[in-house]
């Protein structure tokens, strides 16, 4: 059985990865366990949420035995793109540090929120982005590609590390290839025919990676 958490541990502080897999495979859970890994090492984590309310992220982390609470504000921040689009508020008493982005279409505001949140916590940071796919419902692929290229460059040269989750099966192959070309490393998840979960590191620039599929389990169970 593969330990996917050890992959997160090995990823450099200035680096970018894409995590690709079908809905429900465990990408979100991988990001949360990565957050735990980094927080344990006293690193700073920025969680960019487009698909879930910050409260929901926290709840699902708790269900997995991960407490994001004590790290709030100093070592952990949310960038919340979900709330204003869903017409709710970010208010989350456990988390004073929430950076709100008011629209999925406002890529500029999202880019600035990433810079501001990171700089305000102190560099370098680990940025976890869930998920890129949601942006495609609201912007053209070209705009997103340029946006991601800029964010990735800024993160790698100044801010630190970023992991993007992307849904497989909802983008055309060209778009997915484009996304893969923008980052240092690509990790993939899939279901086998018997619905086992498998994971592999497709490639990690500058690191040894064996692109061999291995079975893994999602902790906390979903």
């Amino acid at each position, binding site marked *: 059985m593969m330990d996917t958490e050890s992959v997160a541990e090995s990823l450099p502080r200035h680096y970018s990865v894409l995590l690709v897999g079908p809905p429900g495979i465990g990408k979100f859970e991988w990001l949360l366990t990565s957050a735990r890994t980094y927080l344990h090492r006293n690193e700073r984590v920025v969680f960019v949420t487009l698909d879930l309310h910050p409260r929901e992220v926290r709840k699902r982390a708790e269900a997995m035995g991960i407490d994001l609470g004590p790290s709030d504000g100093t070592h952990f921040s949310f960038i919340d793109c979900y709330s*204003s*689009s869903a*017409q709710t508020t970010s208010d989350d008493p456990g988390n004073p540090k929430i950076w709100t982005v*008011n*629209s999925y*279409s*406002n*890529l*500029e*505001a*999202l*880019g*600035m929120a990433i*810079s*501001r949140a*990171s*700089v305000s916590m*102190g*560099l370098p940071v680990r940025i976890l982005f869930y998920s890129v796919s949601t942006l495609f419902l609201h*912007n*053209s692929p*070209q*705009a997103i590609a*340029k*946006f991601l290229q*800029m964010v990735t460059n*800024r993160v790698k040269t*100044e*801010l630190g590390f970023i992991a993007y989750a992307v849904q497989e099966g909802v983008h055309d192959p060209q778009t997915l290839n484009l996304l893969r070309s923008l980052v240092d490393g690509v990790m993939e998840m899939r279901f086998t025919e018997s619905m086992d979960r498998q994971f592999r590191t497709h490639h990690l620039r500058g690191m040894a990676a064996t692109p061999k599929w291995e079975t893994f389990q999602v902790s906390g169970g979903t």
Partner: protein
Amino acid sequence: MGRARTGLQILDSWLGGGFEKPSTILFFSDHPTERRLFAEQFVTTGLKEGERCLYVDFYRAPALARRDLRKFGPFPEDRLVFVDGTSSQLLIPSSERYIVHSLDTFDEIMDTIEGAVRDAKPERIVIDSMEFLADRFSSEGLFERWRKLSEVTKSTGSVVCYMFLNWLYGQKEVRRMDESNDYTVEFQSKVRTGILEHYMRIRDHRPGKRATNWIPLTFREVVGLSVYFPRILVTGPPDAGKSTVVQKLCQSAMSVDQLGTTVAFDYGNVHVSGLEAEIFGTPGQERFEFIFQIFARQVNGVLLVVDSTREEDLPRAKQILKIVGSDVPLVILANKVDLGGAMGPERIRESLSLAPTVPVVPTVATEGKGLLEGLTLLAEQLVGAR
């Protein structure tokens, strides 16, 4: 023909009082920046001066946008009108007078905006943003209707700011946008050694084309944006009054964050009419020269203080100028002009072999006289030729 002030005195003075009415301004960047803050400040400055403003927003529901605008301090809310381009995206009801009901048809969107402009006849307009439209509709159609909208805004006497972040277009289209607007205000944001820095510059495309330098900016709630110079150096021979200059400059300007004297430098923060600067005073003794040499390389500008009654100090002042170099913006403060036997500015200019562009400002530092004028002249040099 009036002028639309930006609220930043130093920019307004460069602009001859503000952006010309009517005119079209492109708020351009090619990566995420804080340009929206400048647009919001431009709108709230107009509102506070009693102008009517129209904000076309495709990103924020008007309630949210109003809340963001209030960060610039109170303004007469009834003079602010929205074209609500967001509520229909979020499938929520809107009670605004002008609403984009559907984003399906480009012409309908533009008809709504044009109608609102004709109807409200606002003095200032912000379109937030053109890249939202460029990402959804073809460039040919976009440029055509964009040109028409500018004709309408000119006919109503409005100053219109088109926000445009270039995700998609090549150089050809960007040049076309430059050429079809009166001004371009360009923005940059950089992370440098863990600090987020913001810059802007204005390019005036009208006859007699000219442009400012890249100008650093900072933002504080309620105060809004300020032109920001993080390192202004106050230097000069011993006992010329450098410490007094730093202290008085920072007092006379409702100073915040004053830390007083540190071991090697006087320090103060000055914040006055849209200009904020960190002022560092170097000691005059020669033993500090090495510190000064390190520091001088990174300064935005230099205020050189000389004692107008001590001609014998001028060779030392000239030496300091040599260390400063000729590339750094410079203003001479001819201090202690209230004392008997003070030299005139021309005498000082001659002795220091100053270029004719370097201002010599008579000051009485102990009374704060002439100091803000000196700082403003320095800031004008930093912004660029007038």
